[in-house]
């Protein structure tokens, strides 16, 4: 079989692609692979003839993978597209572009019914435990619903399974007839966790699962999530803006800014040797619980606001607020490349 010129060209490009070692590079251990994922929300004008006048580029081309059994933390300011990323991965929003592969299956092209069946394997824990539980359903019905939907249990078996799930998340199994409003925030979040666990998923997107909770309850829920991960071999995408919590729970951390991932590395690597100036600025804002060290701590204070995602800056999106910015930063969008083993960053002057 002879190679036509185009085929050789393709193969050459494929080789270059592989050599570049993108952050979403395929490997057998990856549960989830996201590449060039884009989620734009159109802005329209006009009443009868709606024309698109622009788009909110909530997520604008991100690449990453999640390995089986790990926790990938996703941090960033509010409005940077963290939650949108989580929802686009679970196909709760139809992504504008890019690919999401779960266990090798491309999710973006799946039909409605196929995707509905895939949802057994991937679940979500929501930020607001008050808004994410139907106020007119009993706890038993809320947790039992996924069992019904996927025909996992019915009748007495369902009741027993619901009680077991309540026990697993540390709630009284006889609470099945109560309504969400009868519980505290922490308890409600446990109900949300039990609902996600009902279908025995492999992957859970935890969308700021503790930021709506009282500080005294946060640790309990974090510990519960860790316990469950060990017990059921779960993989988490943990979205948060609390850097110390992310440091505690994550194996690897991705930092997002204005719809893009700017840095992705193993936890220790990222916290000890941040390459991207935005990550450096974020980390410098974390208080240290030691007055002597805290006094000497040097803070990097960013000036200005986050630019609008409707009209992001040219070149590097961070250049408008970056103290290291040069001419090139406003002209060329830095590539997201591996600067050290398993340490990706998108910056023209990393680490400096």
């Amino acid at each position, binding site marked *: 079989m002879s190679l036509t010129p185009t085929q050789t060209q393709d193969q050459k490009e494929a080789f270059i692609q592989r050599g570049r070692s993108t952050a979403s590079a395929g490997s057998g251990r990856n549960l989830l692979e996201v590449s060039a994922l884009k989620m734009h929300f159109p802005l329209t004008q006009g009443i009868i003839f709606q024309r698109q006048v622009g788009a909110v580029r909530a997520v604008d081309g991100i690449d990453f993978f999640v390995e089986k059994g790990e926790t990938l933390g996703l941090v960033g300011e509010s409005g940077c597209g963290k939650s949108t990323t989580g*929802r686009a991965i679970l196909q709760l929003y139809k992504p504008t572009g890019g690919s999401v592969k779960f266990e090798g299956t491309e999710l973006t092209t799946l039909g409605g019914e196929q995707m509905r069946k895939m949802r057994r394997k991937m679940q979500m824990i929501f930020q607001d435990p008050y808004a994410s539980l139907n106020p007119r359903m009993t706890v038993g019905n809320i947790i039992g*619903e996924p069992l019904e*939907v996927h025909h996992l249990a019915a009748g007495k078996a369902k009741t027993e399974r619901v009680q077991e799930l309540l026990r697993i*998340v540390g709630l009284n199994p006889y609470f099945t*007839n109560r309504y969400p409003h009868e519980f505290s925030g922490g308890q409600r979040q446990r109900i949300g966790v039990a609902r996600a666990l009902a279908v025995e998923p492999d992957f859970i997107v935890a969308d700021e699962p503790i930021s709506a909770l009282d500080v005294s309850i946060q640790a309990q829920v974090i510990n519960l999530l860790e316990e469950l991960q060990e017990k059921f071999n779960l993989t988490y995408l943990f979205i948060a803006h609390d850097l110390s919590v992310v440091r505690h729970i994550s194996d690897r951390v991705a930092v997002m800014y204005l719809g893009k991932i700017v840095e992705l590395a193993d936890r220790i690597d990222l916290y000890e040797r941040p390459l991207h100036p935005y990550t450096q600025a974020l980390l410098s804002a974390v208080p240290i619980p030691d007055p002597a060290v805290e006094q000497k701590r040097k803070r990097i204070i960013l000036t200005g606001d986050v630019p609008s995602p409707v009209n992001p800056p040219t070149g590097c999106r961070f250049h408008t607020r970056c103290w290291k910015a040069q001419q090139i930063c406003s002209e060329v969008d830095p590539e997201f490349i591996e600067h050290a083993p398993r340490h990706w960053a998108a910056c023209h002057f990393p680490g400096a």
Partner: protein
Amino acid sequence: MSATATPLIAMAPARRASAGLWSNALYRLRRDRLTLAAATTLTVLVVLSILAPLLAEHVFDRSFEQQDLLKTYHPPTLDPPAYLLGGDELGRSQVVRLLYGGQVSLFVGFVAAFMNLTIGIGLGLISGYFRGPVDDVITWFITTLNSIPIIFLLIIITTLFAPGALTLTIIIGLLFWTGITNFVRGQTFALREREFILAARTIGAASWRIMFRHVLPNILPLIFVLLAIDIGTIILAESALSYLGLGIVPPTPSWGNMLSNASTYFSRAWWLVVSPGATIFLTVLCLYLIGDGLRDALDPRLKGAS
């Protein structure tokens, strides 16, 4: 499976066992005296209307069209019982006519409202949940329907079909649902953006399930109130329509046509206005109270049960 985490709350004995929303609602309703009284009153009205032929024959000894021109404008009296509520301009027994009128008015009210509700909820849910082109088509249809003068439409229908209680019911049932659809659509719009709907999609619930298990129960209490208002409106609208010669043709009585008829004789015989007026008022009041009671009974956040 053994408990992973120790339960935060000491095991308390299970409270009153219940199966869910409806059994709880029933439990609460049984303790709500006002709603029970309203339900009883309405039931009595319905039963009396159903028994109208029997009562007319055995108690009042009058048919609803039997005239007695010597007793025109007879004031209310206990003897004979046929003139319990007086006699009308042709000396007919007001009480017997009121009972027969109940048959027509309640039938038209309930059946037409039920039709309105079915169409209204169905289209409203579909329109509000799916949005996009489906919503555009339904909204366009509603706007078009609402922009046609209803009188004009009714006159056309009258010439096409034989007027009668059943025709009237079907016409009202098929034409008056747009308000309910708009209401349900608006509520669905608001609800579908709530996080628990997103959560339902995340667990893999199909669209019909989200519409009927998550959206509908959250608007049902308001729908009950809407239904009560709708039945009241229909009972009153029926009289207006009968006046046009559509629907109830005299001498068949209905509460509506009795009321509009009696208004002419108000200065001579006030009781002819009061009895159908009070009956309509009582019916609508009972419906409102029941709707209100159901709304409270279906709200798990209101204490009172268990």
